[in-house]
């Protein structure tokens, strides 16, 4: 279902708003798409990485002589025989560890050989002498004590705290004293994995002149190129990054990782192209994860249900290195201060190092974790106040025109509409609280997330070039990257709409840094909004070039011209017409001819947050989910029966694609809620395989109901806002609330695997409620 709140009557859309198949789908369904691991090239070597078996150890020595002598081995590298510099946020990481390893999986050495088997045999011949050091795995232990120090080489660091994120707005203590009801509790989340079905695969090849070409599924390609150059001492003008089709990322492939540098270093030493493909085990052990975040939260309200304050103590367990994963706290903070209207808020938070695989920028980026706490407390509060949780939400819902405590300017907001839709579809008013006899329950959760970029870098921009060649073919060259999410098709639709051509007249080029204009990268649900605006701007300019020529040829002013299906007509005299191909040729072939081509760069009007204040995004997305579960009181097994969702997408450029993003995101959220976890024992991931990890199957995800709410954002392309991450955010909270409704217990952590649910049932875990200053039984 699509609900459009406002329509712009003047805007008649022919392509935007249609359910159109992805342009790349025919190749994908026939197996013709060539992913990185499918590339064949002459002389290709196979790379493999030796990883630390210890969570924390000093490297005394490395002996690679036996590996080097193995026939078929073309390169063996380690910190002692390569040039490399620290890289990453906080410069706390380096590709091949010179003196110390900090988690099980840290990169120590690597080989390139003529085949996989030889490469792995060579790894077995490398001798590393480690001095095992005490390790710390619990973030609270890491926070409390200064020993063992994980990054003793960083002089400014105090203990193992890598960053602090503190914020205060209003007067929380005064608000707490006034509150009729306060709920307080601890909410935790595990280390989880993006787990795309395609594991990471990278190919590096140096031309005889020293030019480096890297094929990588990374989706911040320009930063990737710069980091490769900075870390390895290469000239970044002589690096081309090509992004082959990507077999899913979900943030797992966003950033540069040690294996990227390692593949390049292997190619450099071997003087042959090298491909490194991760096994599934390596993917879990050695690529970026979703950081566990532990939140102690208090929320207070007055007797009518007006929220008075939120107060949070947060520890983000980001593992052995910082990376961008440390910034998951930024998003978690946005939700704690700005999900619903909260007049007073306070957050004290620490990002700590532990001797574990480190966090990255996985879909939702801190938001599912924060929403799990915030939205459970909305229902806990409502129940304590005797108010329906949906009424409590509607009373406090964000509205268009609001500016949140962190300075986020909400220009379009369909939150209330989303809540009303899922309330009605789920039969909430008749069914919530009434299904416990059948072991069933309903629970809800809403979301706020950036939907118009997120300025965490100097520019949040994206470039676009649109050209029309002598055949009339329109080509969009965009800075954005296709990961499977459908950006290629969405951007083509925007260009087709703006140019007045059918979709199949538009080609998209988006995979080569030599060709495409700069873009920050795919993150923060920004591509439709930012790359879409850039594409639309470039398309409008190219169309204007064509209209200028058409005006001359048809003898009519531009404002009397109309474009239909790639043909320019004079309004009222459609027989006076000329198509784009002829127009392009006329411009090309005339004296002082020119090509039809235009470029644009769109950088949204946003602010980098200073002291956590500032309008970080040009638009914000909202949504609401209701989950229905059946809880087996005997085993603790939870079956998700229904999931109703409604999302404010601004405008659905391609409704089928929006649904696909939301359904897929929600299914990942279901996995977070019920099954997915990298279980770590003594610093080691116990079972790094897809069996034990717990990715949902067709038996675990019910048919997800999706409603698209169109609020027509004032700045979005045709009113669109980002939706790539939104779906994953509410399910853990909504499912926890549904389990609470079914059982009366209060979940404290996800994944809510059966034995945890059973334990909460057996120990009668309840809400902690304080009424007028005194604790009451939950």
């Amino acid at each position, binding site marked *: 279902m699509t609900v459009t709140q406002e329509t712009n009557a003047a805007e008649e859309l022919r392509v935007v708003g249609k359910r159109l198949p992805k342009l790349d789908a025919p190749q994908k369904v026939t197996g013709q798409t060539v992913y990185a691991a499918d590339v064949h090239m002459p002389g290709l070597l196979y790379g493999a990485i030796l990883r630390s078996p210890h969570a924390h150890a000093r490297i005394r020595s490395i002996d690679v002589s036996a590996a080097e002598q193995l026939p078929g081995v073309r390169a063996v590298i380690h910190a002692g025989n390569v040039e490399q510099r620290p890289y990453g946020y906080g410069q706390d990481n380096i590709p091949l560890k010179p003196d110390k390893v900090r988690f099980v999986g840290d990169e120590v050495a690597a080989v390139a050989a003529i085949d996989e*088997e030889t490469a792995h045999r060579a790894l077995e011949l490398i001798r590393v002498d480690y001095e095992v050091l005490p390790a710390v795995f619990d973030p609270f232990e890491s926070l409390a004590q200064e020993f063992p120090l994980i990054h003793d080489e960083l002089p400014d660091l105090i203990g193992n705290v890598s960053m602090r994120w503190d914020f205060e707005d209003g007067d929380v203590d005064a608000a707490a004293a006034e509150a009729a009801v306060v709920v307080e509790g601890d909410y935790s989340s595990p280390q989880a994995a993006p787990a795309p079905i395609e594991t990471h695969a990278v190919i590096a090849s140096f031309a005889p002149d020293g030019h480096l070409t890297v094929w990588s599924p990374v989706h911040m390609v320009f930063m990737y190129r710069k980091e490769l150059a900075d870390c390895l001492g290469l000239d970044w003008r002589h690096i081309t990054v090509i992004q082959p089709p990507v077999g899913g990322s979900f943030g797992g492939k966003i950033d540069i990782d040690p294996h990227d540098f390692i593949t390049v270093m292997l190619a450099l030493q071997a003087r042959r192209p090298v491909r490194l493909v991760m096994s599934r085990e390596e993917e879990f052990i050695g690529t970026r994860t979703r950081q566990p975040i532990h939140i102690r939260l208090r929320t207070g309200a007055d007797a009518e249900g007006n929220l008075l304050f939120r107060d949070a103590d947060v520890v983000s367990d980001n593992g052995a290195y910082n990376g961008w994963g440390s910034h998951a706290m930024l998003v978690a903070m946005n939700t704690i201060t700005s999900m619903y209207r909260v007049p007073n808020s306070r957050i004290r938070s620490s990002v700590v190092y532990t001797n574990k695989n480190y966090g990255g920028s996985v879909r939702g980026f801190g938001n599912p974790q924060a929403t799990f706490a915030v939205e459970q407390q909305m229902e806990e509060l409502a129940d304590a106040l005797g108010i329906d949780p949906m009424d409590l939400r509607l009373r406090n819902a964000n509205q268009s025109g609001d500016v949140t405590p962190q300075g986020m300017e909400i220009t379009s907001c369909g939150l209330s509409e989303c809540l009303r839709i899922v309330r009605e579809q789920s039969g909430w008013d008749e069914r919530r609280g009434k299904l*416990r*006899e*059948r*072991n069933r329950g309903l629970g809800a959760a809403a979301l706020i997330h950036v939907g118009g970029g997120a300025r965490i870098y100097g520019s949040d921009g994206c470039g676009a070039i649109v050209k029309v060649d002598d055949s009339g073919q329109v080509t969009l060259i965009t800075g954005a990257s296709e990961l499977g999410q459908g950006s290629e098709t969405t951007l083509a639709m925007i260009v087709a709409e703006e140019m007045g051509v059918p979709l199949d007249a538009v080609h998209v080029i988006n995979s080569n840094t030599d060709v495409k204009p700069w873009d920050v990268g795919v993150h923060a649900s920004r591509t439709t909004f930012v790359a879409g605006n850039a594409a639309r701007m470039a398309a409008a300019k190219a169309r204007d070039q064509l209209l200028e020529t058409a005006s001359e040829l048809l003898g009519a002013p531009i404002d009397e011209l109309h474009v239909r299906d790639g043909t320019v007509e004079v309004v009222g005299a459609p027989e006076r017409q000329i198509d784009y191909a002829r127009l392009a040729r006329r411009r090309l072939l005339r004296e002082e001819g020119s090509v039809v081509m235009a470029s644009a760069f769109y950088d949204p009007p946003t602010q980098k947050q200073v002291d956590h204040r500032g309008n970080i995004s040009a638009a914000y997305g909202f949504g609401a989910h209701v989950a229905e579960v*059946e809880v*087996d*009181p*005997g*085993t*603790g*097994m939870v*079956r998700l029966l229904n999931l109703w969702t409604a999302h404010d997408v601004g405008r659905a450029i391609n409704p089928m694609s929006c649904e696909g993003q939301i359904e897929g995101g929600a299914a990942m959220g279901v996995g977070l809620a*019920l*099954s997915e976890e990298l*279980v770590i*024992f003594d610093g080691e991931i*116990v*079972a790094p395989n897809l*069996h*034990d990890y*717990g990715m*949902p*199957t*067709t*038996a*675990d995800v019910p048919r997800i109901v999706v409603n698209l709410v169109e609020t027509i954002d004032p700045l979005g392309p045709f009113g669109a806002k980002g939706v790539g991450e939104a779906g994953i955010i509410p399910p853990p909270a909504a499912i926890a609330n549904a389990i609470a409704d079914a*059982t009366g217990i209060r979940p404290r952590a996800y*994944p809510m*695997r*059966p*034995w945890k649910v*059973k*334990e909460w049932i*057996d120990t009668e875990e309840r809400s902690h409620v304080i009424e007028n200053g005194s604790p009451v039984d939950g």
Partner: protein
Amino acid sequence: MAELFVPQTLDEAVGFLESHAGSATPIAGGTDVMIDLRTGGVRTEWLVDLSSLGSLAGIDLDGEQLRLGALTKIRALEVDSRLARRATALVEAARVLGSVQIRTMATLGGNLCHATPSAEMPPALLVHDAVVEIAGAAGERSLPLADLFAGPGRTTLEPGELLTAVRLRIPASAAGSCYLRQTVRWSMDLAGVGVAASMEVDGAAIVQARVALGAVAPVPLIVPEAAEAVVGSELSPATALEAGARAAAACSPISDVRGSADYRRAVVSILVQRALRIAWLRATGDWPEGLLAPINGLLAEEPA
């Protein structure tokens, strides 16, 4: 890298395995062996491909006697309508083993001989008094299925011996069985606890019962004292509860990533009660014929 030997007869297979004891590993469906080879769990010089020994596959039902060839695919058990009626536990175990693809490849003999403590098929066979037939260089022998298992990943087969068939009795009427399990996901998962129960009734009394457990001891367990708790009368909540308690006491689960020992014991008790109840409903004709139970046995009318 292993070499491959493809025997054309059972004798050839047994002979090769005996003469290469310690350096040859039989492979049938391969769904366990191939993983073990890749991860280094098995290192072997020879793989002995049994898949061309077609005579070792087949489901033969003669009256109440069922004989399942060792190379019978799990998928073949799952889709057999006779078994769905008369050996429901077997079908309920088969349908949750891996995926359709895995079940299409995996064999009954492989599932038994890999001796994974959480394997699905052993409990479902144990409640039918299964006996395994074994061929070796010294001839054939048979032994109760329970005696096949020596520990996680270990059987009592001598070097060179091959499991060739499983024999069991499936009563034609007044009987019922059920296999339930606890998992994290609702498909593609290993059992945290697996429970099978079977019974035969005469009038309103249970005259014979079996309870077997998977994943809660180093080997699949048959628990006679749990079954005895329900024999002699109709099934009541009290007798089922007693059976559950005895089963929980008899098992020796470990604590691992799939739950603590205490949790598993509690789940054993619950699932034994449910499996007995469903087996009872089947034996007394109060359960729709051929309908499989929810995998955790939770029925809609069950009180919280």
